[in-house]
């Protein structure tokens, strides 16, 4: 018996999940049942991690994504998502480490563009980040949900983009600082800043 879950079983599962025919709790049960039979299958760990993230069980989600990458270091989408999870969690250094291996992908691969865009974000280069995220979205034909997430992030960055006149007024202030100032001002005015 193979240590990997048969492709057909996995495809059926993914179709069911995509059609929202099952609740996230039930999805988790299905994945866990398969993991009992195929504990070394990185794809199942990746699915488990993604489902747990959807349920808000973030510590276990991280564990699932990490396990998937440990089992299959070349599993590019799992590696990308683990890095994105780490960036979202305030662990930018860990994210940069996780993404390092994705540099082996072709320059024109959409994941390379997304990673390079997020690296720009970490460096406060907002314009570079938006441009590369958009490039990635244009190139990505195989993973629409990921395009949706990256497009949302790019849109948010554009929405918060600084007025060029303001940026010129103080060359020592990073673009991000300006963005955050514009973002927080109205909140402070209302007295409900975080």
């Amino acid at each position: 018996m193979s240590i990997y879950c048969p492709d057909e079983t996995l495809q059926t599962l993914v179709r069911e999940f995509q059609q929202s025919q099952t609740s996230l709790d039930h999805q988790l049960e299905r994945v866990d049942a398969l993991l009992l039979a195929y504990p070394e299958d990185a794809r199942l760990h990746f699915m488990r991690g993604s489902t747990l993230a959807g349920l808000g069980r973030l510590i276990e989600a991280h564990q699932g994504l990490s396990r998937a990458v440990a089992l299959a270091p070349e599993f590019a989408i799992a590696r990308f998502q683990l890095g994105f999870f780490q960036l979202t969690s305030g662990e930018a250094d860990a994210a940069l480490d996780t993404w390092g291996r994705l540099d082996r992908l072709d320059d024109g691969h959409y994941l390379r563009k997304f990673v390079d865009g997020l690296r720009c974000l970490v460096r406060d280069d907002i314009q570079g980040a938006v441009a590369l995220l958009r490039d990635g979205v244009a190139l990505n034909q195989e993973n629409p949900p990921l395009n949706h997430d990256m497009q949302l992030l790019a849109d948010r960055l554009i929405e918060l983009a600084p007025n060029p006149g303001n940026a010129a007024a103080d060359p020592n202030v990073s673009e991000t600082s300006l963005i955050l100032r514009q973002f927080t001002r109205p909140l402070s005015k209302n007295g409900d800043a975080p």
Partner: protein
Amino acid sequence: MKAGGSPRGRALAERAAYVEASLWRRLRFENETHCRERLFSRFLTLARALAHREFGRRPPQGLDRGDFEQWAYGGLLEAIDAYDPLRGAAFGAFARHRIRGSIADGAAQASEANAHHAFRSRVEKERLSSVRARGGEDRDDPIRELGDLAAAIAVGLVIETPAPPLSGGYETQAWRDLQLTLEREIERLPDTEGAVIRHHYLAGVSFAQIAQLLGLTKGRISQLHRSALGRIRARLRPDD
């Protein structure tokens, strides 16, 4: 007065629930003990708000707001140590219960004698003993010792006071400039010294609680406090 670095690009991608989960994971499963302090800072506002609410609901009986804050911080520390992040309950709700309990216990145990030694006098005594604890040759130089004590009092006063009493616009601005200078110096301190100064002066956390928070002895916190004040004082001193 608020301490903190400038915002960064990565902050735009962060999500609060993910950041909190990451802190719990690293504290509980990856032995990154500094995450305990970050969680404490994250929920400090909650503890303080509960302390103020409870203070407003009870007759003072000689206690001050600072006493309530100390009990609240104690409750928060207990909550951080007792919380199981895998059980699904949100930490805020869990901590709220513990903090209220800690305040209720503290208020119940506060005796008449304790009331006369309220937080403010205790904290000032604690600071000054920390500065005076310096041994060796400095103890033979009363002028220098007096200077150290005055510096400790001054740092506390500048950090904690929004504006000097009975001041005009110019004095207020000068005071604010001094606060900003101090704020920058606190940012430049080594990590642990900075944590001691921020928690003690900006949040009013006692040395004993900071010791518990950082996993160090109270004596060590006192040393770090002294060393941090010395460092700040040396940096602010004009060149001879």
